């Protein structure tokens, strides 16, 4: 469950340390809730954890008061779950096989984690076109990275 909480944290907080903090907080809150008998149906534990993630992130965004209290109360994060790094030489080769538009769109999108609108404006393409190009390029990249042709 911890990797999923971390991914949720990365997605919504865009910060590795904050995501690691979220893992710690949510797991502790879940354990406390289970001890207190608040989680009666273990089959629904995933929904409970996701709901807790949403609540904690919302509170972090509201000013972080609860987060600060939790950070004081609980131990600092001890573990991260880094994604396995891709083979960069292979990735460079696969990016090189993309069409020019695909390469620019994919790199500028993921480098800056910009929305389609922002990249569209920068490259003179439409929002819809950017999404189509990005989806196609991602498919080619993944195929190439797994050993197929881009």
């Amino acid at each position, binding site marked *: 469950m911890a990797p999923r909480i971390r991914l*949720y944290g990365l997605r919504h907080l865009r910060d590795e340390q904050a995501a690691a903090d979220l893992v710690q907080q949510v797991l502790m809150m879940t354990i406390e809730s289970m001890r207190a008998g608040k989680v009666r149906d273990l089959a629904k534990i995933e929904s409970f954890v996701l709901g807790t993630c949403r609540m904690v992130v919302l509170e972090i965004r509201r000013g972080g008061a609860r987060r600060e209290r939790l950070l004081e109360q609980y131990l600092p994060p001890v573990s991260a779950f880094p994604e*396995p790094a891709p083979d*960069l030489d292979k990735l460079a080769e696969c990016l090189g096989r993309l*069409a*020019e538009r695909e*390469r620019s769109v994919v*790199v500028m999108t*993921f480098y800056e984690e910009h929305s389609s609108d922002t990249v569209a404006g920068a490259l003179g393409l439409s929002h819809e076109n950017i999404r189509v190009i990005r989806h196609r390029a*991602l498919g080619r990249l993944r195929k190439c990275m797994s050993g197929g042709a881009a």
Partner: protein
Amino acid sequence: MSCANPIDPATLADYWLAELSPTEESAVEEHIFSCEDCTRQLQSVIALAEGIRTLARQGNLGMVVTREFLDRLAREGLRAREYAPQAGGAVACTVTAQDDLLIGRLAADLTGIERVDVALCDPSGAERQRLQDIPFRAGLSEVMLNYPIGLARQSGPDVLVMKLLAVTSQGERLLGEYTFNHTPSA
């Protein structure tokens, strides 16, 4: 056990980029929290994104870039060496150990142009490489190319001629020719 209803990687990328509607986003999260396979897929999308970021920071991706993109890299402390020869002109260039990116700025009037190719040629005009159908924003008066800095570092003295070409169904027209006289850094 594999997922019976896996989320498309493109949708996971949209999720990562915050481009889904709240309803779609909520559905993805509920699925992720109950699915190990799709969690791994999301991790691989994030890893791919991080790999792309690493390669971009290394300056080794030959690609069209924008001023906004270079400004972002500069804010992260990367140093870009830029050369901007006039159309029909030449510039002496090099790259040093302190440079992170090597940028060629090709000035041209792109008004009304639908497709642009960049031909990388030797001094005799023979094409070494062609970048087809590059992205460009109407109204700008230059194309910015990130040249792989690793290639430039390995290169001895060399002359590279870049040609901007407007391509139509009737053929192609030269928009500008730019000569880069490269010498290795001392």
